[in-house]
């Protein structure tokens, strides 16, 4: 096993099993780090907790719901608005956050009474919202409040409301991934099958593991609707509570982020016989393959091929403009769980970037299997890195950019490495054909930002050039570019709008596409 020992972690010997170098000839049977284990004491992890994983990642993107945490306000505040999972109902789920406001006295005397009071108050404050998710926190779990009983009590008093209880306190699992698991299983156990699905098409899918970060789901919905496919529910970005109770009515589960949502797909297969199709919504080729597979499933392949043709013609020249300028740039692919494998191969192939490292904070060994299988030789794979390890890796690997979340991202900035937020996104959406070009644009803008040239100069010791003017990105990126490519009229930088979503949301879709042609079984 080609284990990688960080110099900064020699005092934590257990860490050695959490990083491997993918060397020549290595495969998954010889190079796979440990994963999804409790963080080793002394290692300052960048992980989130299981409450955060349940509420912030999966529960809260549901749009027509009061999301209430039974715990101190800090728990709900810290899981509020840090991820831009927008919705088409004026972002109700992002605008407000709710807590039962537990304090020390409730730890002693119990907090069920204040919980019930605050649940009713929240429903009365937002009378149009009739659905609630209720999240346990460490504090309410440790004192043993019976949230299910309180929820039932409120539902008895207010018959028009429905409440989902998620018992996933922060300590329930090594990381946020424990919360993903708990809420998946709780949702299928308690809610799926409790509402009859409203079927409007002969082709019905659940789109699972998609959180509508800056509109990813909007773009993907557009492709599905153009094929006549009904997205019965999206788990959970821009998803509706009652649609998600009707997940059992789909023909196919189309799974995007298997890390956070494969559990519910597995259970839907076992309990309702709905198969699971894993797809990639990122990158032209993987997305094209994915659309084709979904369409093939329903016997409407030509519709997918038409979309692929149109979208590729529209956006490929723009992707290639960036590819020419990003060729050979080194990238640390350090997202949360699934993007490390969604992107490991295609970002190299379609943007020309060399992936020098993949890491995951909360991924399991399964995610590393996919990531290591897809990335090129020479990459350093790290599980649950601590801050010192990420700094050591950046100093050693000298990446031109890291793509990650805001916590490690800010650390990167301090050592002058450009960083792009791929959790909440900088200027998403990043899914779909246009989204992939927007990601390439953001990576280009980060790498060639003139500020990084200035930031590398230390005014206390470096000589500051006074004979050079300010350089633009284009001057920097095209300096060593072949003239033929630099002036090519076939290629162009991104020409989409600053906010590309309204155009997608204004599309109309012919009704007849939703019905199978006569004679087609």
């Amino acid at each position, binding site marked *: 096993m080609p284990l990688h020992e960080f110099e900064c972690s020699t005092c934590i010997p257990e860490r050695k099993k959490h990083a491997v170098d993918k060397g020549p000839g290595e*495969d*998954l*049977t010889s190079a*796979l780090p440990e994963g*999804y284990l409790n963080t080793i004491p002394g290692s300052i992890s960048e992980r989130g907790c299981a409450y955060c994983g349940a509420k912030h990642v999966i529960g809260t993107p549901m749009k027509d719901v009061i999301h209430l945490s039974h715990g101190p306000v800090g728990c709900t505040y810290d899981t509020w608005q840090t991820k831009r999972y927008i919705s088409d109902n004026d972002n109700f789920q992002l605008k407000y956050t709710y807590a039962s406001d537990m304090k020390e006295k409730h730890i002693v005397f119990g907090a069920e009474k204040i919980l019930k009071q605050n649940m009713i108050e929240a429903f009365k404050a937002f009378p149009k919202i009739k659905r609630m998710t209720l999240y346990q926190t460490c504090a309410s779990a440790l004192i043993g409040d019976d949230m299910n009983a309180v929820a039932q009590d409120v539902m008895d008093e207010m018959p028009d409301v429905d409440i989902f209880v998620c018992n996933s306190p922060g300590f329930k699992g090594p990381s946020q991934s424990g919360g993903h698991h708990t809420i998946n*299983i709780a949702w299928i156990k308690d809610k799926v099958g409790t509402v009859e699905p409203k079927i409007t098409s002969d082709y019905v899918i659940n789109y699972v593991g998609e959180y509508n970060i800056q509109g990813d789901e909007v773009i993907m919905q557009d492709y599905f609707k153009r094929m006549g496919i009904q997205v019965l529910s999206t788990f959970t970005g821009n998803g509706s509570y009652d649609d998600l109770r009707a997940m059992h009515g789909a*023909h*196919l589960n189309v799974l995007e982020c*298997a890390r956070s949502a*494969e*559990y519910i797909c*597995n*259970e839907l297969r*076992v309990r309702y*016989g*709905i*198969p*699971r*199709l*894993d*797809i*990639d919504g990122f990158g032209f*080729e*993987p997305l094209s*393959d994915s659309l*084709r*597979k*979904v369409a*093939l*499933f329903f016997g409407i392949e030509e519709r997918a091929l038409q979309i692929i043709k149109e979208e590729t013609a529209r956006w490929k020249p723009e992707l290639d403009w960036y590819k020419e300028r990003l060729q050979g740039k080194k990238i640390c692919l350090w997202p949360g769980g699934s993007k490390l*494998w969604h992107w490991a*191969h295609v970002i190299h192939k379609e943007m020309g970037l060399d992936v020098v490292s993949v890491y995951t904070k909360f991924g*399991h*060994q*399964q995610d590393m*299997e*996919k990531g290591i*299988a*897809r990335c090129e030789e020479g990459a350093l794979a790290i599980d649950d890195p601590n801050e010192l390890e990420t700094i050591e890796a950046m100093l050693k690997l000298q990446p031109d950019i890291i793509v990650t979340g805001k916590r490690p991202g800010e650390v990167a900035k301090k050592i002058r490495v450009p960083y792009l937020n791929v959790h909440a996104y900088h200027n998403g959406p990043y899914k779909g054909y246009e989204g992939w070009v927007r990601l390439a644009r953001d990576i280009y803008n980060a790498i060639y930002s003139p500020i990084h040239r200035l930031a590398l100069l230390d005014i206390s010791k470096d000589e500051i050039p006074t004979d050079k003017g300010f350089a633009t990105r284009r001057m920097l990126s095209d300096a060593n570019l072949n003239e033929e490519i630099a002036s090519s009229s076939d290629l162009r930088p991104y020409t989409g709008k600053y906010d590309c979503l309204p155009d997608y949301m204004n599309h109309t879709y012919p009704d007849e596409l939703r019905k199978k042609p006569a004679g087609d079984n």
Partner: protein
Amino acid sequence: MKDRIAQLETYIMKHCLWQFHSRVWDRKRQNEGVLTKTTQILCGEPAAHETLEDRCYWVDAVCLADAFKSRCQWLNEMDKTEIKSLMQELKNRIDYLTIDGSLNKELTDVNY
């Protein structure tokens, strides 16, 4: 033979996700389902896709067979017996990488 299997293996590992389901029983079912149908398609034999489950394997198999044929010209020159033998060796290899030789400790969990 070994080089050819390596080419097919590399394509699967870089482009596909069906081989990385959660548990041993899932991976056995997936590898069997997708690669059996891929073999049938490559050999010009009918591949069942009437049930939802079969259809799901079949769509992955159709795309895989197309990719194999377009990227590995030598496949088009092989006869059925050779293709079946090659694909059996490929399945053995994928089973080894994802199941029998896998270092993933969660594969044997009894629950999802």
